[in-house]
């Protein structure tokens, strides 16, 4: 089969020629999936030169339809020949066929507009919304922990957190199981502290509230005020986590902001605890090579083309006093950022203004997360991996209205 794509306004018009049968079905689905991934959610198939359609081909069309429906898009077929038209009508899929091009579709392919902006689109959700940050537990590497340093936290809607903790179970056990976690709108993804362990997750369902015993937690409660969307432009192919954080600070006009990011990954750079800090026998300055036993490092940019769910807290401060639990960025002078990212298998996101609850729950209710990282900026000269970056995505953010002194946990 051959495919000739044309961009027509919001529509991707694809002229297909050849036989859509079992031999080509997979290639057909993969090709269309790629256009949907690029943000084309309204697909029009020009079947003028498509001379055969088998049941395997219909299954491929159903898959494409389901995919565009999941992002409120559309899939339609035009100019089908009599065989294809008859086949579709007899099998109950005649509703895909349309006699004419949609009215809102331009007549000719448009020259792709040179987008000179920064690739971001900002939507104001609620100008009065904000987050309140607290730090109920503030473990720093590599201090010995004990039961008194564990804080039990329950998470419900409108609550966001990142930190290090163990799932709610016997406190004596939890010391052995301290790993990174993030909580978004009450749902928790947690990375058990062992190489090769898959991340676990706890979902807020009915009366159940996920809980973690934390030794470190940045915890926010409140509503998001802004929605940022970003997608590649002619000049810009990806967006760094620091760039997204700076944009959140700029749009919320605040020195400190919290943000939830759901985005297709260009590459993640991060680390994760592989040995529970609860096993520390004493306050300890851990250096190379011993540190390898305690933390893993990704070693290369990972999980390209999967989807990341990130919760982060960012602050901007020109002086170098720093912030509690917010490491300073080398790549963005004055930016302080702490973010955890859970990686999920890719699913396309709807266009326009989308609700965080609906968007994130699709991932929590879908295939299991693949990994969880504490995002790290690797600015080593030459060999450095840089920062985590994303191709396109959506970011909900809000100003954090706290005074610095309120953040201390003692």
């Amino acid at each position, binding site marked *: 089969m051959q495919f000739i794509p044309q961009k027509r306004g919001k529509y991707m018009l694809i002229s297909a020629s050849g036989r859509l049968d079992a031999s080509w079905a997979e290639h057909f689905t993969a090709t269309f999936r790629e256009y949907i991934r690029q943000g084309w959610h309204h697909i029009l198939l020009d079947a003028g030169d498509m001379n055969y359609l088998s049941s395997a081909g219909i299954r491929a069309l159903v898959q494409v339809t389901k995919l565009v429906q999941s992002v409120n898009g559309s899939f339609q077929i035009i100019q089908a020949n009599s065989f294809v038209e008859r086949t579709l009508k007899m099998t109950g899929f005649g509703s895909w066929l349309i006699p004419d091009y949609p009215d809102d579709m331009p007549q000719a392919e448009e020259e792709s507009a040179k987008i000179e902006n920064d690739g971001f689109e900002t939507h104001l959700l609620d100008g009065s919304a904000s987050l309140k940050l607290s730090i109920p537990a503030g473990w*720093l*590497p590599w201090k010995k922990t004990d039961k008194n340093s564990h804080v039990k936290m329950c998470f419900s809607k409108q609550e966001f957190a990142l930190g290090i903790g163990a799932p709610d179970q016997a406190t004596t056990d939890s010391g052995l199981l301290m790993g990174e976690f993030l909580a978004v709108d009450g749902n928790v993804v947690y990375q058990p502290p062992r190489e090769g362990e898959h991340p676990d997750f706890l979902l807020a369902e009915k009366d159940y509230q996920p809980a973690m015993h934390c030794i470190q937690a940045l915890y926010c409660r409140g509503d998001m005020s802004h929605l940022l969307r970003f997608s590649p432009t002619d000049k810009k192919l990806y967006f760094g986590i620091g760039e997204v954080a700076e944009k959140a600070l700029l749009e919320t006009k605040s020195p400190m902001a919290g943000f939830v990011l759901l985005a297709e990954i260009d590459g993640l750079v991060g680390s994760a605890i592989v040995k529970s800090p609860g096993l520390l026998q004493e306050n300890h300055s851990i250096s190379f090579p011993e540190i390898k036993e305690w*933390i893993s490092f*990704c070693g290369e940019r990972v999980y390209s083309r999967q989807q990341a769910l990130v919760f982060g807290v960012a602050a901007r401060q020109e002086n170098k006093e720093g912030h509690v639990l917010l490491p300073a960025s080398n790549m963005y002078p004055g930016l302080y950022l*702490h973010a955890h990212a859970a990686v999920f298998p890719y699913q396309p996101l709807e266009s326009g203004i989308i609700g965080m609850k609906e968007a994130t729950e699709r991932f929590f209710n879908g295939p299991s997360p693949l990994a969880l990282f504490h995002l790290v900026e690797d600015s080593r000269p030459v*060999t450095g991996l840089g920062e985590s970056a994303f191709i396109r995505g959506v970011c909900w953010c809000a100003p954090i209205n706290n005074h610095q002194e309120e953040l201390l946990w003692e």
Partner: protein
Amino acid sequence: MLKINRLIKTFAPGTVNEVRALRDVSLQIEKGSFTAVIGTNGSGKSTLLNAVAGSFVPDSGSIQLFDKNITSWSEHKRASLVGRVFQNPFAGTAAGMTIAENIALAMRRGKRWSLTMAINSKVREEISERVKTLKMGLEDRLDNPIGTLSGGQRQALTLLMATWLRPHLLLLDEHTAALDPKTAAKVAEITREIITRDKLTALMVTHSMQQAVDLPDRIIMMHRGRIVEDFRDEMKARVRVANLIEAFERVQKLDLFDHSVAEVLQQQYV
């Protein structure tokens, strides 16, 4: 059953070619278990197998087989206890001799030789019966020189010969690596059948992740002369090819974790 204790072997020590092939390897294999050894190139897996087979004397450490310390035993002395199949299908058989003659040799492995007829009708019948179990039609070609057979057929026969006397320990050194995928799958299947049927204890080096998942009941992963993963019991039951590939990626990542990464994490990890 097989007890390897703190085995160390360095090849060409003190030279530019120095290779620390085994760095303090300890491993215990229970009777009747089938263990796969996987690892990157140069990880020491074949060296471990060779150490058990007696191809060299280790620098330090000991090897015990059935409570006998065999560390200083020569390779041929160990042959009475250990059966072995090599990667090269042409290595385990004598090309100019017939199938029956090759097997007759294997039947007397580790025993004293006499001038009696090597292949009488009873022996021939036994050979035919056992060769039949390979389901390759070779029972009708017992008088053909083994050199006229394909690599897969020779490897299947080598496997049969190595296990003829039900050795205490069977060593398989990438024994399907030189075969085409279909033949490799067939030989792997025969391997599983023989080991299960005869309740053999086996140690298999393989580069095939799928084989490591499908055949044995334990998987050892080696890297740079050390055992870095040991999937056994319930962990082995849940392991899949993707988990093994992840484990490879993890050990390779660890190699990239150097001083400079530690510095980055010390700055960034709070």
